[in-house]
């Protein structure tokens, strides 16, 4: 499910963070404001701290030791998790599915978006309209037939099954087409005058210029693949990625929440690292593209 604010990316990046409407205010008001901001921040951070804390408590410790700082912290849960072959598989599956899915998405959607933005051809409007219509259709109606289709293809419980339906998504085409439309055509025309083919022009002129948009799409696509839950839960059994694996873990270890929390932490850590590294950039991307998870 996705949509776009009808604004160019460059324009959005140039938006200065400026404070509006507040002059100097009394000391008490400001203290209250900061107090509020910190309390809200605590609401968002505390559960993560609790999860990490729980993951360091082994077995029954989680029920006997209520402290946020574990009395006897240890990596037993993590060691137990990674000693299980299937957990290592989940992690590996997530890594493969997310990176391959992101790369292929960028490749095929940028090609398609470029044609829709720059070349005129018969039935273009109709084909693009067809893509856009599916953007507003709820994902729920595709679950059963996609499951059936994957089964008929003999791909149930395989890695391709986790990637393929995601690759068919149209958001990337829509998003990149908007970006290409905003680029000046003159450079590409110059390349054409010099005898470059469409493909050559695309690779050596348009694609490099689309760097920022591609990066945005890459981050969003990676997060979407890494975090995807419902589809993997439907289609995987032994070959799950992490979020779906967590469900199996929870069912198997209901009485051992420390272990489950360690699993959740492992699923969260790569994303949190990515977020820490690219925080400003990710926030900007989401604000400008308006994508809901």
């Amino acid at each position: 499910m996705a949509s776009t604010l009808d604004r160019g990316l460059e324009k959005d990046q140039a938006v200065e963070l400026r404070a509006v409407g507040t002059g100097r205010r009394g000391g008490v008001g400001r203290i209250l404001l900061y107090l509020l901001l910190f309390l809200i921040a605590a609401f968002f951070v505390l559960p993560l701290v609790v999860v990490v804390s729980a993951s360091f408590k082994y077995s029954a410790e989680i029920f006997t030791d209520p402290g946020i700082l574990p009395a006897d912290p240890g990596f037993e849960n993590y060691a137990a998790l990674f000693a299980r072959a299937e957990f290592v598989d989940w992690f590996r599956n997530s890594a493969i599915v997310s990176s391959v899915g992101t790369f292929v998405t960028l490749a095929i959607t940028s090609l398609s978006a470029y044609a829709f933005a720059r070349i005129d051809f018969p039935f273009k409007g109709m084909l693009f309209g067809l893509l856009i219509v599916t953007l507003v259709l709820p994902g729920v109606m595709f679950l059963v037939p996609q499951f059936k289709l994957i089964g008929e293809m003999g791909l149930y419980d395989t890695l391709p099954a986790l990637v393929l339906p995601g690759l068919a998504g149209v958001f990337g085409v829509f998003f990149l087409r908007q970006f290409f439309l905003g680029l000046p055509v003159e450079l590409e025309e110059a390349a054409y005058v010099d005898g470059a083919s469409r493909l050559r022009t695309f690779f050596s002129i348009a694609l490099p210029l689309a760097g920022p948009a591609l990066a945005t799409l890459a981050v969003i696509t990676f997060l979407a693949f890494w975090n995807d839950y419902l589809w993997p839960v439907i289609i995987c059994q032994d070959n799950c990625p992490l979020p779906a694996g967590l469900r199996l873990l929870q069912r198997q270890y209901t009485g051992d929440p420390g272990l489950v929390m360690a699993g959740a932490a492992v699923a969260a850590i790569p994303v949190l690292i990515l977020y820490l590294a690219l925080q400003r950039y990710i926030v900007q991307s989401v604000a400008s593209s308006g994508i809901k998870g």
Partner: protein
Amino acid sequence: MTSIATAEPKPGRGGRGGMLSRLMWGSGRDRRRRIGENPITPYLFILPHFALFSVFILFPFFLGVWMSLHDSTALRDGPFVGVRWYQQLFDPSNRTQFPRFWNSVWNTVLFVIISTPLLIGFGLALATLLNQKVRGRNIFRAIYFVPWTLSVSVVALTWWWMFNGNAGFVTLFMSDTFGWSPNWLATNPWAWISILVATLWWTIGFNTIILLAGMQAISADLYEAASIDGANKWQQFKSITLPSLRPILLLVITLQVIASFQLVGQPQLMTGGGPPSEAGGETTSVLLHVFNVGFSGRRELSLGAAMALVVAAIMVVVSIINFRLFSSERS
């Protein structure tokens, strides 16, 4: 192909073509065709994605309808049964499908009705706070947004533990402070409140960021002029901020309603759809019900497909109403 291509209309800047021509040619910017270019080229550009799209989205669209008219499970392909599943879903005298399905629809609708104003309201409030002259605004903004980057299963398990009846943080905190704590995940309304809190935690940050970006795009001159005219903060918020945010609010509300309608991971992992009731679970959302019917137990794919189509139809109608409601008013 070639003959159609040469019949292409000229690129005139202004009044070109009606509906039909726009459908044929789209409305791209550069429509200068290159002499001698192979007319197949653009189709090759779109081919890789369009092939995947056709197989995994376009075809399943029709396959879903087809399946909903048959009696198939994951194990066998059944015979054509016409609209039998739809009849069962819409027949009040049916004792199994009807109450279970509409129970889950009603649960979901209630969740959407209650969660949307909260998610939008808190989003607006946080965006307004962050739009003040505060130090470290970017840090606060980044912190509020963290949960959105997590998978729903991580979010649901986090709160499954927070609300755990034995040693969950919230349970212990309540017991220590008030000497009593509800059995959060197993009794209502607490189970719903748990799901609501988890959802708020997960997605408020998203709404905040989008709304904040919208607020920062509003010209400061408007606020200056208003304060010269003696308008107070609340009046400024009401007559400048809100009207200027209108298109963005519409977007955020629409996305939020659609997202809330697809609630599934939270009840699945936190409450298991319970506490149990005659109609199959007090926190069973419609997507969870589709999952339970189509992908677990007997895996009744056909019934699941029919329910999914009814749900999709409801969602499309709700989106249209929502759009009409918010875009016509004072536009």
